């Protein structure tokens, strides 16, 4: 379906990434946000709080902490809303239990994470990419999530819409990662007309209350949804549950529930994955990066090419699930892979695993507090090309 | 059980739900319940209406029973429900 024009601020704007992410959420139909103040993400909810009363039929509430905001949105989703919360690394750490709950409830939910330097209170106003693993693995147990990484305000708008659409399609938590510098970067943002924006409607059940159970697969592996107040009188729990949503604490139910929760993402990974390539075919060296690091990598690659090196860029737009097949292929054809990321080495382990010894993988780390210098990445490219 | 109407009301029991906590027996205002001699499948003694002539159908046992095993009802209320049922109408709320 098309976006509701009430939430779409059509026009050409000069806007920062945080505000653009908020506009993306409104355009996608998000009408409930709960948040707790945390630098450098707060502008997203500040804008939401200002805009939602005028957009209409929606609410923002500032909760007492991140634990509360990450579950208030789950109440709102069960009441039929599209909902999100916005935070930064320390907030994601606090929300982890509810990320697991959202995965177990199987509800569409968007978390916007404007990343800052860590660990702990770290560098509240400065960038880093240290959340890439905690969004994937932070909660206990086995589950799958989707994560998108943005590198410009325009992407903040576009990918937030995509995040809401993916959340609805696969009924799982979806993360939108902004680097602090992307959140606060002012650039041109084009917001199209509402009828040019595709918005995924909730996968409402087509069943009657008599024949409905909340976890019976209805759309492929995905169960159809209902909302509280519609007479379905559902029950759901964070305990291991059967198709009825009732606790059923045994190995068989655990096996069935966890498998379906994981496979609904894994088996659809090809439809979810998105990446951009620049000169990867025929390249000797391939740089793999995401978020703001891709902007620096581009300059490094440009300079290395001037020196006659065949180097390409694989930019991960969707970081989780990883484009595993593509990285395996690349590793077979390239002489070396370089992973540049704003941490001391997180995604590099995944890349290394996928390269499977077919070519060496080099990490270009950055502890946070700034972004890489193009020369640092270029140096790694020149080193690898030797 | 007998159909004879001795008191003002009676009780209904799902004896397999009973866990023998004695709430109903101890709180019955007219002391008309007693523990059974026999056991239910779980091995608990359950209540029996030992003094039916004293039962008022007040449903205090129903309000107390933490296992949803027992409730009381007055004959008057039961007749009303039966009449409603005979008329084919939906049984209304008891209150």
């Amino acid at each position: 379906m098309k976006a509701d024009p009430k939430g779409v601020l059509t026009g050409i704007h000069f806007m920062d990434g945080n505000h653009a992410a908020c506009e993306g959420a409104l355009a996608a139909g998000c009408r409930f946000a709960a948040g707790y103040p945390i630098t450098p993400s707060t502008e997203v909810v500040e804008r939401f709080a200002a805009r939602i009363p005028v957009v209409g039929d929606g609410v923002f509430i500032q909760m007492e902490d991140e634990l509360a905001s990450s579950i208030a949105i789950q109440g709102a989703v069960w009441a039929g809303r599209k909902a999100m919360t916005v935070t930064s690394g320390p907030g994601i750490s606090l929300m982890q239990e509810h990320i697991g709950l959202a995965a177990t409830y199987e509800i569409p939910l968007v978390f916007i994470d404007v990343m800052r330097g860590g660990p702990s209170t770290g560098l509240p106003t400065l960038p880093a990419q240290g959340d890439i693993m905690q969004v994937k693995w932070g909660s206990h147990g086995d589950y799958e999530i989707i994560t998108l990484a943005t590198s410009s305000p325009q992407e903040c708008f576009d990918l937030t819409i995509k995040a809401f659409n993916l959340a609805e399609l696969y009924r799982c938590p979806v993360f939108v990662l902004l680097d602090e510098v992307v959140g606060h970067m002012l650039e041109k943002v084009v917001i199209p007309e509402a009828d040019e924006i595709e918005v995924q409607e909730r996968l409402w059940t087509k069943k009657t209350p008599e024949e409905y159970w909340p976890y019976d697969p209805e759309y492929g592996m995905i169960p159809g949804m209902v909302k509280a107040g519609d007479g379905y009188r559902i029950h759901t729990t964070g305990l291991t549950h059967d198709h009825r949503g009732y606790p059923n604490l045994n190995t068989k139910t655990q096996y069935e529930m966890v498998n379906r929760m994981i496979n609904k993402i894994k088996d659809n990974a090809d439809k979810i994955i998105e990446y951009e390539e620049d000169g990867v075919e025929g390249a000797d060296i391939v740089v793999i990066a995401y978020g703001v690091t891709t902007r620096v990598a581009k300059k490094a690659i440009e300079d290395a090419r001037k020196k006659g090196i065949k180097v390409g860029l694989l930019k991960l737009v969707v970081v989780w699930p990883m484009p595993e097949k593509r990285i395996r292929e690349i590793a077979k054809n390239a002489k070396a892979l370089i992973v540049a990321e704003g941490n001391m080495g997180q995604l590099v382990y995944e890349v290394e695993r996928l390269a499977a010894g077919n070519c060496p993988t080099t990490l270009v780390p950055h502890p946070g507090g700034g972004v890489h210098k193009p020369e640092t990445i270029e140096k790694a490219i020149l080193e690898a090309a030797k | 059980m007998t159909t004879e109407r001795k008191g003002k009301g009676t009780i209904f029991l799902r004896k397999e739900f009973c866990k023998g906590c004695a709430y109903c027996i101890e709180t019955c205002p007219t002391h008309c319940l007693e523990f059974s001699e026999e056991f239910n499948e779980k091995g608990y003694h359950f209540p029996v209406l030992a003094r039916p002539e004293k039962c008022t159908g007040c449903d205090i046992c129903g309000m107390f029973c933490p296992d949803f095993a027992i409730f009381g009802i007055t004959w008057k209320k039961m007749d009303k429900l039966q009449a409603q049922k005979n008329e084919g109408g939906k049984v209304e709320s008891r209150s």
Partner: protein
Amino acid sequence: MSEKDMKETYEGAGVSPQDQADNPVDRILRQERMPHIWCPGCGIGTTVNCFARALEKLNIDLDNLAVVSGIGCTGRVAGYLKVDSFHTTHGRAIPFATGLKLANPKMKVVVYSGDGDLTAIGGNHLIHAARRNLDITVILVNNFTYGMTGGQYAPTTPFGSIQTTMPYGMYEHQFNIPKLVAAAGAVYVARWTVYQVAHLTRAMTEAIAKKGFSLVEVMSPCPTLYLRRNRLGEGIDEVKRFKEWAVRKDGADVNDVGISRDKPLIIGKFVDIERDEYIDLMNRQLSKKLGDRYTLYGVENGEV
């Protein structure tokens, strides 16, 4: 067990029981989930009876009722009720309920959970919900302990009581729950025990009907992990003790209602006041500032 099987298990009076089965609690129970997990002599089931009877008195459309629970023994209540029911994480039933109510104001939202869940791990949410005065009802079952995890001490465990993590007797101060939520802004606060089933039912009725944040504290025995460990007998012994121990003082000063096993247990309706509700306040402020640009939220046919 199916609904039909459930009713057919009733015996009595020589009449066809499935025709006559009229236990109000049966109408809101998920029959297929019975029997429940609560121990013999536990009072939680009694509170559910009272809740069922309160709903019947209020004549609420059960399609518009949501019950939200946290974790623990009382946290299992939601799972047994045939309404939209949500079993959330430990301590977070109230913020879940806040999101649900705010996203769909036409729902009646009841949080049904225990003392440890609501006042310890969920304590911050409890006071903030009372402060906001969003229209939700909290039924707090206080059994002085953490039952599900094996009888550890709670913020409510009385002085001197033995618990697994207080093996030499409780020496921490307790929460006075009515005082806590009254100070934070609750508009309705009452405390009853499972002995006063009729009063408890009425209190639940009033609390659910009350607009704003309401709380009913229900004192309930935990025979397995509190009473036995403290040589206080069975569940029924505590219920009978409640009869002697409890003293009704409606309108009592909440400063005086802290619980000690050596002093009378003050019960009754402590707070019943009027205070602006959250959505009303939001609508008023936003209308004032935004005028025609703002459409009242959650209002259908002029009613919230």
